[in-house]
């Protein structure tokens, strides 16, 4: 009994697949529209994921820069650095002397010759404080920052984390935006599939009427349309996945180039397995739902007379 049931479903599945291949142009157009529609939020998701991954690398390096007053002598700075190193919240302190800061600035900024014109070094010495891993949390960093500001030698103490946190807030905002966009586009996919199925139902009006006359239940009549819609949704999602992959492939070289300029080994990643399954699954569910809504509405209108 169950075997027969599965066999019938398999028959309907292949029948629906056959129907799709019999009208290749129409099928391709529908699948292409669904694919492009789904590719939009999927690619934005990939972009945000990658930026977030990149930024999470920076967050671990959350560090505090202490800009020291100009008149503090080198020996005093060494002593201060040692004192800070002994704080439990601190894992490492790097001392960048005024001379080293100037040399680095000359090297990186390209203003080297302009600086030569100055008669004295305008840059302060800097102590770069790396907090211990256990103290990387933003609140604890703030506490550490407050402590460090108390030293007389410190002119300005700054957490380099603020902009990372702002970036994260922006990414979170973008992520919400993508969700809203995805919801809107999901409705668009529903309408696309619903319309395709509506036309298919109207095209097969006679067949539906005859099937009703010889005792076909609504579930029986609905089945091939549901398979058709679900298949179109799945194929559309598959196409979206390919489009995202293709887009990423085209961007690999520029991304590597850019990362190289920043001395980073960052590599852009495609959709993960879970995200891919979610994409394909949404395609299938949207296809099923869109065809279910359309068939339910139009099937009632077709009655033998």
């Amino acid at each position, binding site marked *: 009994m169950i075997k*027969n049931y599965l066999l019938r479903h398999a028959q309907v599945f292949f029948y629906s697949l056959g129907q799709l291949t019999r009208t290749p142009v129409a099928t391709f157009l529908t699948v292409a529209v669904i694919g492009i529609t789904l590719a939009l939020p999927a690619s934005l998701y990939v972009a945000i994921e990658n930026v977030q991954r990149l930024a999470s690398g920076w967050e671990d390096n959350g560090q505090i820069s202490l800009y020291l007053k100009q008149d503090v002598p080198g020996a005093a700075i060494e002593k201060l650095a040692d004192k800070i190193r002994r704080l439990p919240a601190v894992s490492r302190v790097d001392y960048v002397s005024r001379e080293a800061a100037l040399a680095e600035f000359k090297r990186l900024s390209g203003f080297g010759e302009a600086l030569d014109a100055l008669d004295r070094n305008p840059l302060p010495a800097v102590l770069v404080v790396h907090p211990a891993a256990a103290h990387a949390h933003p609140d604890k960093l703030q506490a550490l920052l407050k402590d460090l500001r108390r030293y007389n030698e410190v002119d300005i103490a700054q957490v380099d984390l603020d902009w990372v946190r702002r970036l994260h807030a922006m990414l979170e905002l973008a992520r919400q935006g993508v969700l809203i966009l995805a919801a809107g586009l999901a409705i668009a996919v529903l309408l696309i599939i619903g319309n395709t199925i509506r036309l298919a139902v109207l095209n097969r009006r006679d067949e539906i009427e005859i099937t009703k*006359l010889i*005792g076909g239940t609504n579930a029986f009549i609905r089945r091939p349309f549901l398979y058709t819609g679900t298949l179109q949704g799945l194929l559309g999602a598959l196409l979206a996945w390919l489009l995202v992959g293709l887009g990423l492939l085209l961007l690999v070289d520029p991304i590597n180039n850019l990362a190289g300029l920043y001395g980073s080994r960052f590599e852009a990643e495609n959709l993960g397995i879970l995200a891919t399954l979610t994409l394909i699954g949404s395609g299938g569910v949207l296809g099923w739902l869109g065809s279910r809504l359309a068939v339910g509405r139009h099937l009632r209108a077709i009655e033998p007379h």
Partner: protein
Amino acid sequence: MIQFTHVFKRYPGGFDALRNINLQIRQGEMVFITGHSGAGKSTLLKLITAIERPTRGEAVVNGKNLLRLPRRRIPYFRREIGVVFQDHKLLFDRTVFDNVALPLIVTGADPHEVPRRVRAALEIVGLLSKEKMYPVTLSGGEQQRVGIARAVVNKPPLLLADEPTGNLDAALSDEILDIFSDFHQHGVTVLIATHDWHLINRARQRVIELKQAELVSDSGAAA
């Protein structure tokens, strides 16, 4: 098998298609329904197949009260009735075999049984050799016989036909009648709506005549 008591059918707009019909058809009978166009023959068949509902009165077919039959039960109710349509209602994008197989597919018959039963039905109507052909390539009489094969493939206890010989010449009509008579002899209840008196006279069976929505004569009315 069919029991109508004071059945009325009024269409929206006030047109009476059937007025006060009392009718009993027992299992195994063969009955002709006749009358001019618009006399109510088609409406009567539509009531029996649950395409239309009676406005008033009691109509019982195959033990089901048509006034109270829930919509979702209608498909199962129709599986007990084989219907032959005047315009055949075949699917032109499918072979003769697939057309006849449709009622079996719809009822979820054992897939291994389908070919045997389809061929048995085609054999009865003499079209076994044409199972792979498409309906368009067949003559009117052959299309009608495909329709009959489809109506009986499920072995329904009740067989309805609406003007089954409407477009056929006398010789073909006789052939069709012979097929129906054959089913009747095998115990199937057969109900044929027609205004073809040649057919009716030849069959020598019970005749019910409708005139202007009313039943005016019944040659074999049950006591």
